[in-house]
């Protein structure tokens, strides 16, 4: 009797997941502006502080072990939310790239495919970082992992992308008024 109801519960959960993904699929595709906005909303300085090994060493030496574990867990959780946002920005860029990939213009399609590839690679990297940070949150006693390789470039790239976005807006306003 219980086994049958477990099956029914699994089926209902799966059906909910399927209906959710159907609803999500119908949402408006992302624009470059959405992607840049998400990227710019990430406070890289705060994120750097959260994963700084020196900061961690300082906390380890100045806090009692149980308090240190609590603080490290909280810092890991906060860092996960930053990395997750970076991953979401990458996913938005991937969405834009995949839209462009279906363009009848071969140059746009090729550029779109490249953007999608790059953004998906970045998304994978952020997911891996999230898993690592989650491990730190679960096992705070273990030594922290090295900061992700992409973080040094993140701030610079976000600024460059925003400049491009501003330029594009400016051009579209100029072409409309002309």
């Amino acid at each position, binding site marked *: 009797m219980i086994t049958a109801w477990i099956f029914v519960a699994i089926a209902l959960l799966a059906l909910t997941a399927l209906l959710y993904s159907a609803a999500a699929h119908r949402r408006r595709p992302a624009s470059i502006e959405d992607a840049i906005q998400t990227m710019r909303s990430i406070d890289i300085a705060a994120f750097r502080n959260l994963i700084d090994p020196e900061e961690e060493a300082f906390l380890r030496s100045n806090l009692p072990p149980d308090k240190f574990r609590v603080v490290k867990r909280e810092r890991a959780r906060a860092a996960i939310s930053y990395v997750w946002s970076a991953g979401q920005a990458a996913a938005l860029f*991937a969405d834009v790239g995949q839209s462009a990939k279906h363009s009848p213009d071969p140059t746009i399609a090729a550029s779109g495919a490249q953007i999608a590839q790059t953004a998906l690679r970045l998304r994978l990297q952020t997911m891996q970082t999230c898993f690592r940070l989650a491990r730190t949150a679960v096992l705070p006693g273990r030594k922290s992992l090295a900061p992700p390789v992409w973080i040094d470039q993140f701030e610079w790239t976000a600024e460059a992308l925003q400049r491009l976005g501003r330029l594009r807006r400016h051009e579209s306003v100029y072409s409309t008024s002309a």
Partner: protein
Amino acid sequence: MDWQSFLSLCLWISPHALLAAVIVLLFRRRLYRDFPAFTAYTLYETAAFVLLFVLTRLPRVSGDQYKYFFLATMVISLAFRFGVIEEIFENVFRDYQFLKAVPKHRLMWMKAILALAAILFAFYAPAENPARLMAGLAAVNRGMAMVQSGLLVFLLCFSRILGLSLRNYAFGIALGLGILSTVDLGTSALRTQFATEHGIVLLNVLSLSSYLICVLIWMGYLLAPDRKAAHLANLPNSELEEWNRELQHLLRP
């Protein structure tokens, strides 16, 4: 003919009539080249329906003979569905060679875990149905439905989390098949508990309705214009390369 039989007959015939329209759409839009396994599956389902329908009209065919035919077509249909799922996975990850390894490993693990869970559940599932063959096949059907709906939920969730946008056709096929497998899983589990005549009729209606919904989903997604193509007007042209260069800086520190 009472209203329950009439409803069941309508729900049995209508999805297959619509499935024929799906086949026409697949050929008219030349989608059989992208989805050969799905095309084969729809052709098979239609042919199996015609065969079973003819068998129900032949007075020489006994109930037991019909049951064997029904079970044989059901098993082949389950095998076809695995082919369709494999095809959707291929279709989604075809353009991303670097991503292929990730879902392949995950998929292998998913298949192993789901198959193990299906075997365990089939082993411990109550078999109140007196016909042993039917009970055994119901357990197989339940297990396969679990594996299939698990794989499709995994595919849709994984691509959602990763930011992979499925094209309308692949998404529609996956969604329809996912709903069909999920309802199959639920109804086959409930069949072991509600063995009364009324309960079986109700579950049959539920199964047939889900099949009708599934075919309508396929049809809807095959008829709808591609969402991605419609959105192209908002995209910048020459800047795309520059966006990509900037993004690549993140991967090459």
